[in-house]
């Protein structure tokens, strides 16, 4: 059975993670990455509300009223996990100890600018931890659908929505493509087996740099 779009993104994103890393998974698609995590990799998952070594979501029988992730879902703690308060939790982020932040996006520009917290006049739920994650994680990987509902591209030449952080994203993983941001350009590295380079180009709002012979399939 083929995976749905969200799970296809999550499964591909898992390959970004190396043994021993400290990572943060934003709400939504990033959370699904845990389901695909290679058991051979010892990874420490950070949650903004003060968890290091967070495990997967759990069912009602295992749920603990005092143990949730930043989106409110009930989670487990892995062996060797630890709790801390919100000050220390964000010292880890701003202090540069986070290897990868997987984040969602409303818009990503060719310069790696990220907008993911506000659509003026329509959607303004607050900033949460996203700004600090985007600005201070050693690596920011965006995991998102390639386009908005209705078809507008999320990957654009320049962001028009309020920024979360400038020049922070280095890789974008969508259900259609893996795109790297290098020196202000969008480099198409991989496309999904279900799509074509032409389709990816037509659904992307900024110029893509690629060599047809080296674009991989995932």
């Amino acid at each position, binding site marked *: 059975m083929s995976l749905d779009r969200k799970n296809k993104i999550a499964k591909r994103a898992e390959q970004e993670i190396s043994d021993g890393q400290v990572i943060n998974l934003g709400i939504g698609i990033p959370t699904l990455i845990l389901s695909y995590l290679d058991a051979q990799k010892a990874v420490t998952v950070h949650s903004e509300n003060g968890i290091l070594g967070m495990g997967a979501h759990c069912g009602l029988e295992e*749920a603990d009223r005092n143990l*949730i992730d930043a989106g409110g879902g009930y989670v487990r703690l892995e062996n060797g996990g630890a709790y801390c308060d919100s000050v220390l939790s964000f010292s880890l982020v701003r202090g540069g100890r986070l290897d990868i932040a997987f984040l969602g996006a409303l818009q990503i520009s060719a310069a790696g600018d990220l907008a993911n917290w506000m659509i003026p006049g329509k959607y303004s739920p607050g900033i949460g931890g996203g700004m600090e994650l985007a600005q201070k994680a050693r690596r920011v990987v965006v995991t998102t659908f390639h386009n908005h509902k209705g078809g507008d591209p999320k990957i654009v030449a320049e962001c028009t929505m309020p920024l979360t952080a400038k020049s922070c994203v280095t890789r974008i993983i969508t259900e259609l493509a893996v795109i790297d941001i290098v020196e202000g350009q969008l480099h198409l590295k991989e496309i999904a087996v279900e799509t074509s380079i032409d389709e990816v180009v037509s659904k992307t709002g900024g110029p893509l740099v690629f060599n047809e012979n080296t674009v991989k399939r995932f």
Partner: protein
Amino acid sequence: MNKTISAAEAVSKIQNHQTIMVGGFGVPGTPFILIDALLSQGTCHLTLIKNEANISGMGVSKLVEKGRIDRIITSHLGLNKTVLDMMNRKEVAVEFNPQGILAERIRCGGAGLLGFVTDIGIDTILRENKQVITINGVTGILETALRADVALIHAARGDSLGNLCYEKSARNFNPSMATAAKIVVAEVEELVPDGTLAPDSIHTPGAFVDHVVRIDELTAEYSILEDYVVG
């Protein structure tokens, strides 16, 4: 010295037009019993400092829904459509902060500092109307410290001296808020005899805490939210 008092006595310290801090991140660490006592007391025109506003119909959301809160200093309201709608209708003023900046502003207030300089948000609209300072060639925003008249916090265990231990992800904003208010009130699930908490395991020493309220019985609000079980 015995710091234990009732929830009603504790919230009687809060007056109209004051600023309160309330611990918690979602259900874990939110002092629902103290919030209910404040709701019954009817105090209004409050400024509320809290990470989020719980969810509709729960915790501090009830204070906002009843019009008791004029202004919220917070990080994220995405799980509370009722309060977001009130914000959009301008029935309550909301100031959003990056979550760790909110925590650090509270920490600063508690540590007797006036503020700090950070580059978080420097390339965003958060820079607007804030003082910008360059230190060693890096430009940052001056973020001011936050303090409150009264902090309402929740702990798993405490003693009559006010020593507190939090549990799991219920720690969150509680320890920093315990340092940053003129009057600090902690509700505790379990009140243990003085001297029985291991000194090395105490998260908040009693010297920070003015009043301890023992929870007789956890109300329904402390329970698992079945809608949020996704595993």
